[in-house]
């Protein structure tokens, strides 16, 4: 317990927040860096993966690819990917930027599968009858995607981005090993100095950061759930009471996809 009190004292010590301190301080700069790396990587990954996921979900083409790809990526060791990219990028980019470029590429690669699966699973989860009704009243395919499929699949799309964000926050910590900034730098310097307060303080900071960002995205996910859509139904009751009915099967399918989106790195 004493360790935690010491860490909390370290976290609340104003000296650790003084601007211009020796790296890895001040703390607020590392928090800002961590958030910045996370934001940039998730944004790039979303720009790449979301349109692809939506396309695959809408057309049904390339479904096998998403399944194989996300499955295989789950087994990719993040540390190995980071180190390999660092060496590959390091041979072309100046050393000072190598860590940043390699880390962002690695983080983008790691964020893509969840976002892709989220976009794909989201569009897939939309009731085909709803899509057909759109088609019947003369909507173009683009209108169907933008006005029916995307709004209805927003919760799953955000679930994918949420899973990706968590993974990026966690992997950014590891990227301190290739001398990227962020909160990992605090932990790394703590390990180097055998400074327990710093190790624990840094670890607590990252955990709190992850919980806060995740909570924020969870709220966003809830807000975008349209009342009455299949995703808003209480799962438990549905599956139990009408285990043979079509509703129950549909709900279960959605749940499995949700789960499919997440995987821990």
């Amino acid at each position: 317990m004493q360790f935690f009190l010491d860490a909390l004292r370290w976290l609340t010590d104003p000296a650790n927040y003084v601007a211009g301190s020796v790296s890895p301080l001040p703390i607020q700069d590392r928090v800002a860096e961590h958030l910045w790396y996370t934001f940039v990587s998730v944004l790039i990954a979303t720009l790449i993966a979301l349109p692809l996921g939506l396309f695959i979900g809408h057309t049904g083409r390339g479904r096998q690819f998403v399944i194989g790809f996300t499955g295989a990526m789950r087994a990719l060791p993040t540390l190995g990917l980071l180190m390999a990219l660092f060496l590959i990028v390091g041979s072309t980019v100046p050393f000072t930027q190598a860590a940043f470029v390699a880390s962002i590429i690695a983080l983008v690669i790691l964020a893509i599968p969840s976002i892709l699966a989220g976009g794909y699973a989201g569009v897939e989860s939309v009731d085909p009858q709803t899509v057909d009704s759109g088609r019947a009243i003369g909507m173009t395919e683009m209108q169907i995607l933008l006005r029916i499929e995307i709004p209805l699949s927003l919760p799953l799309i955000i679930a994918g981005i949420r899973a990706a964000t968590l993974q990026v926050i966690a992997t950014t910590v590891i990227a301190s090993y290739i001398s990227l900034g962020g909160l990992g730098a605090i932990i790394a310097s703590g390990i180097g100095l055998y400074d327990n307060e710093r190790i624990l303080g840094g670890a607590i900071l990252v955990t709190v950061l992850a919980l806060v960002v995740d909570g924020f995205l969870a709220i966003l996910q809830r807000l975008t759930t349209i009342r009455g859509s299949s995703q808003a139904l209480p799962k438990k009751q549905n599956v139990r009471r009408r285990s043979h009915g079509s509703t129950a099967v549909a709900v279960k399918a959605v749940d499995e996809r949700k789960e499919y989106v997440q995987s821990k790195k």
Partner: protein
Amino acid sequence: MSWLFDNFDLVAELTLNHAALSFTPIFLGFVIALVLGWTANRWLLFRSWIIAGGSILYTIPSLPLFVILPYILGTRITDERNIIVALTIYALAILIRTVAEAFAAVPTDAIEASRAIGYSSWNRFWHVEFPLAGPVLLAGLRVVSASTIALVSVGAIIGSANLGYLFTNGKQRDFLEMILIGIGASFLIALVFDILLVLLGRLLMPWNKRTSLITNGRRILSSKGA
């Protein structure tokens, strides 16, 4: 490739250690998740608490957890038990939800029928609920197996002797081949574990023909059928 042949013993040893380090958390995580997930499903009161607890644990980044655990467990920071406990927590965090949902999806008719013909709760669990939840449990296990094996390597940063050593050492020596061999070996373990899980599933659930050996994410397809 010559480096691999020259250092085959090292790679083999690291690979075996990596596999051993992965196995315990997958197994422990599954057993604990089975108990908690079943409890969550049985008593609705606990359900939201257990599932929320699981997702909070899931949120904790891996390296921080590796370095926090020694303070809680009283172990040394380089102790491999820290990694095993941390990975068990993650396996548990992912699986709790799957297990709760797998049991929730067991048809009520089957449960009521077994109750009517006089199964005790214990027998009902092993002969009715567990087998019927089996395919979903297996799918969850495959996810956990792959991600646990990938995560073990992070432990190399705090000194664990597994394939992650090839990553940290390869980086220090500016030796790409070593890192790539490590990634390949890690994939190989994941593939072997996955094949074993699928074979185990076929052995234990011969009635379930849908689990494919080749694709890792058959669920998304099989759920499509609905």
